[in-house]
């Protein structure tokens, strides 16, 4: 048994608080950044931390892992996490409407020159004649939850192909693995997903690729950088420093994995950094190809496509998923990054 007398405990508290004060007095501001360890699109913050870009900005970054975007958004609203990258979801807009979070920049984006998100169908549906996205009318489409990016993509396909949105029957399955299981076993007909997952699925027998999402959504801003309203309005200096560090991480990511302008040696170094957090449960030689495969461009300098965000917000309203009164000003703070 470890016995701690009251006096020892008092001394420990004293030392602890002194140490804490010493940290406070130092130059580095401690911030928490949310990541989802199964998605490579969270790599730029990890690279920025490993390369010391955040340190250069006087930021002491701690990563907090989440299983999904929704709890991350709630943690930012509650102030437990300072910054995060996620798709614009109904939950995020709701929290923005309640004055808790703000979108401050762009991250993952569709680039016509880079491989983007793919539309997939099950082999059974393909054999029944679903060979182009136009044939998706009357078919089932897997989504995680109402108001997720999958929901948005399904409806954008319907809009562009000119059939009613309600003709695609949406199947909420909560989690990506459940969607994959359902698609492989032919219980849903179609899905759309980022290229690294799409390619490994369509390499198998059960799934066929029939189109690209970029044909249906113009300059799609897939994920955005967001923070608490408190940070965005009252702590501009901290936000600017975070975005400066992140931008350098984004440049490294794009150079290494998207444009492939880096030397092989440097690229391997970048992959190793990412591997500290992403696919960390697999050995490096196994995770390496999965990290490199199908990397999509991350918006340079975290520039934000306002047109795409506005289109997404409009869609949420048209489906009654968010309150009618939410405006772009409520959702986005444009003070920090270039917008287009």
């Amino acid at each position: 048994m470890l016995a701690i007398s009251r006096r020892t405990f008092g001394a420990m508290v004293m030392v602890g608080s002194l140490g804490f004060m010493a940290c406070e007095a130092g130059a580095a501001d401690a911030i928490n950044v949310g990541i989802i360890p199964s998605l490579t699109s969270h790599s730029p913050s990890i690279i920025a931390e490993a390369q010391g870009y955040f340190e250069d900005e006087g930021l002491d970054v701690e990563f907090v892992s989440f299983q999904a975007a929704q709890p991350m958004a709630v943690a930012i609203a509650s102030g437990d996490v300072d910054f995060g990258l996620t798709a614009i979801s109904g939950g995020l807009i709701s929290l923005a409407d309640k004055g808790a979070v703000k979108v401050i920049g762009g991250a993952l984006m569709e680039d016509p020159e880079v491989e983007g998100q793919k539309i997939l169908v099950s082999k059974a549906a393909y054999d029944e004649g679903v060979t182009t996205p136009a044939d998706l009318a009357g078919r089932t489409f897997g989504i995680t939850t109402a108001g997720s990016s999958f929901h948005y993509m399904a409806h954008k396909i319907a809009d562009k192909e000119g059939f009613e949105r309600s003709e695609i029957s949406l199947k909420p399955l909560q989690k990506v693995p459940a969607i994959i299981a359902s698609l492989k076993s032919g219980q849903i007909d179609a899905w759309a997903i980022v290229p690294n997952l799409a390619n490994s699925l369509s390499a198998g027998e059960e799934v066929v690729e029939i189109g690209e999402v970029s044909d249906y959504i113009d300059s799609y801003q897939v994920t955005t950088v967001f923070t608490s309203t408190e940070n965005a309005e009252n702590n501009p200096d901290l936000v600017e420093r975070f975005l400066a560090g992140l931008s350098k991480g984004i440049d490294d990511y794009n150079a290494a994995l998207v444009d492939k302008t880096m030397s092989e040696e440097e690229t391997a170094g970048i992959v190793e950094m990412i591997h500290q957090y992403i696919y960390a449960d697999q050995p490096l030689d196994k995770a390496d190809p999965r990290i490199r495969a199908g990397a999509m461009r991350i918006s340079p300098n975290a520039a934000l496509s306002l047109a795409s965000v506005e289109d997404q917000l409009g869609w949420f309203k048209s489906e009654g998923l968010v309150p009618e009164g939410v405006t772009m000003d409520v959702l986005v703070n444009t003070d920090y990054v270039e917008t287009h």
Partner: protein
Amino acid sequence: MSHDTQVLGSTAGKHKEERAVRQVPFRGGGFVHRPMGPIGAVVFLAIIALWEAGSRTGVISPIALPAPSEALGALWDLVVTGMLWKHVGASLYRLVIGWTLGSLLGIAVGLMIGLFSLARAGLLPLVSALFPIPKIALLPLFIIWFGIGEGSKVATILFGTFFPTVIATYGGVDNVDRNLIRMGQSFGLSWLSIVRKIIVPGAMPAILSGFRISASIAIVLLVAAEMIGAEFGIGAYILMAGALFATDQLIAGVALLSVLGLSISWLIGRAERALLSWRA
């Protein structure tokens, strides 16, 4: 009741004989619940009023908890759009089919375990091994086995209600008064008559209280069952509200589940009165 009158009667009898004995106040009574009328509703309303006041004055942040009036508004939206009946109807369908099948199977297996030694030796360890498995953990397998349609949802509720019913039923059979069974035997009743007239009615109180538990478990599992491919249903509505962080809808959905639980409990109360009238 009869106890009281007996005691009173005997003291009254003694009074006539020996007038000198001092009066003893009646010391029985107490430890009995009397109906208190609307106290339950008053407590309920007081908590809601406090909650509403807290939300209005800003003591309770709208992110932490929406005001009850907002949740009521979300409920009203459901009524106006007619979605309420779609959600409640879909959920009731799954609950009724899953719970009925689970209970029927549970009673059948429970009676077998209670009546036959071979069934007890073979099935009881199996029930004990399978009961603690969280049915939610098996959801991915249920997708493959039963599909993403109604099958996996009904199956989740069925498995959830089956095991508690088995345990309640064989426990009830074990607790049937042995003297009654011996009496039936000495009157020359057949085996089937004893089961039908003594064992099943004797086990009924335990089976019905098992129903109370299994019906609540069925409602708890409804949300899990509707995680997979459900467009309508109270569980699907709650999950959607959670994903959209629409806390007013979330509270409205949870309130619907509570109302469902209350109604089912009331129905089982009626069933108890009808089926256990022999006890009075």
